[in-house]
């Protein structure tokens, strides 16, 4: 199995999780999208040296994952794959942000705090998005975004990208395998890679034309129509109000500091 095959199976696994019956999967996708957006705004609004204050959001995530019956390893495995990007972004902070700050009994460079803050916020943001996908599914997320006002053309693009990402991925995988079998284990040379990419591009255009033709044959007039399967109810309203209220509380009140005497 190539790296690409594994990546595609990771995406497919999230869709499989979203098809199960759990308290979270039963919620209206729009409610989950709104809560995810509120969570992301809350996470992004913290200062770069506020490391402890966002921690209660982790408790929220843990509770949500329990309700959604999402295994931790699913989220942590994907977090591990993506974390090098965050590390790359923050790794120079301890050097460039050298002023000293007091952290309990220790004196450290402020850059260490901002590095930890970046990793913390990155992890929280990625986890909530993974949670959304694993309890809703990409197609329902796209539909919810459409119902919440996202332009239809973008919704269609998201849907088609998700659908044909798998087809394109499988095509690249087959190409790489065919190359591997005749290349004695060598990576593709630049000229070979260039012609492989060119071929892939041309094949993608040809497929796009055929897909468009198939859509035209079934009456496509520029608008992708879908059956409405969304119903906002009291449970969804409670979920949105409860979650956003908790996020506001975490943002406005430093709960870890407030609770420190309780645990000390």
């Amino acid at each position, binding site marked *: 199995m190539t790296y690409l095959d594994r990546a595609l199976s990771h995406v*497919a696994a999230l*869709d499989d999780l979203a*098809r199960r019956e759990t308290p979270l999967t039963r919620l209206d996708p729009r409610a989950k999208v709104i809560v995810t957006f509120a969570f992301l705004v809350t996470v992004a609004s913290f200062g770069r040296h506020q490391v402890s204050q966002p921690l209660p959001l982790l408790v929220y995530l843990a509770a949500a994952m329990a309700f959604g019956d999402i295994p931790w390893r699913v989220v942590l495995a994907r977090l591990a794959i993506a974390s090098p990007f965050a590390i790359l972004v923050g790794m120079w902070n301890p050097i460039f942000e050298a002023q000293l700050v007091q952290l309990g009994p220790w004196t450290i460079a402020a850059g260490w705090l901002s590095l930890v803050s970046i990793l913390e916020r990155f992890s929280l943001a990625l986890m909530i998005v993974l949670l959304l996908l694993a309890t809703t*599914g*990409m*197609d329902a997320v*796209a539909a919810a975004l459409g119902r919440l006002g996202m332009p239809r053309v973008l919704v269609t693009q998201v*849907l*088609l990208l*998700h*659908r*044909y990402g*798998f*087809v394109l991925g499988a095509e690249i995988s087959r190409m790489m395998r065919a190359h591997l079998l005749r290349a004695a284990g060598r990576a593709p040379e630049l000229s070979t890679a260039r012609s492989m990419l060119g071929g892939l591009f041309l094949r993608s255009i040809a*497929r796009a034309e*055929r*897909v468009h*033709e*198939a*859509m*035209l*044959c*079934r*009456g*496509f*007039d520029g608008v*992708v*129509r*879908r*059956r*409405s399967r969304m119903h906002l109810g009291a449970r969804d309203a409670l979920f949105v109000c409860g979650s956003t209220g908790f996020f506001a509380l975490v943002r406005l009140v430093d709960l870890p500091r407030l609770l420190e005497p309780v645990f000390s």
Partner: protein
Amino acid sequence: MSHHIVSMQGVHFVYADGHPALNGVDFTIHHGEAVGIVGANGAGKSTLLLHLVGLLLATEGMVRVGDCPVTPKTLVEIRRHVGFVFQDPNDQLFMPTVAEDVAFGPLNQHLPEAEVDRRVKAALDCVGIAHLADRAPHRLSGGERRAAAIATVLALDPDILLLDEPSSALDPASRRRLIGWLSSFTHTRIIATHDLDLVLEVCPRTIVLQGGKVIADGVTEELLADRGLLEGAGLELPLRMQGWTPGR
């Protein structure tokens, strides 16, 4: 559309690169007929089908579906009556789930939601994949994908079914199921294929194409038994007619 005659009269088509694909094709297919279009690679089978649904327009000649000539102005009407099953189901299944894909056509016909639901259920039941309604198309097997592609077209309630290489890449059991469905349909069926055994079972009539021309049009059992005709067209006798027995 009062009757579902499909006809081509003197149809020529030249691709943009100058390659002539159809060179004066003539035939008339009547309501309820099942017709096999056979020929070697490049004979013009797929090009011919694309003309019948207006995805290609004749350079010269006339294509008619029912009472309508196929022109840019009649495409919406034509496509309401003609269902086209593409060779690669991946081209046909573009929505996130099978049920949504099947609903795509009826929704574009602005049918009420209850009628869309009814058609989706009926189409999925017809090809025996109701249990796959909520599955993503890319997670289906080749046979299931083909069934879903046919269901997307059946949901449009077409009068005429066009199928391009419907049995390609199917395992024997899936192919057998496909032959069962195609035989049971009462639509006018036009099937472009290399699978001559499928044509023998499903289509009483066959049109043989060579170099973009009709070189034979007649009763399937007679044409597909004509070794000289078939070999001249780059084909061979169907396996069933080759007299092959195990051990020989």
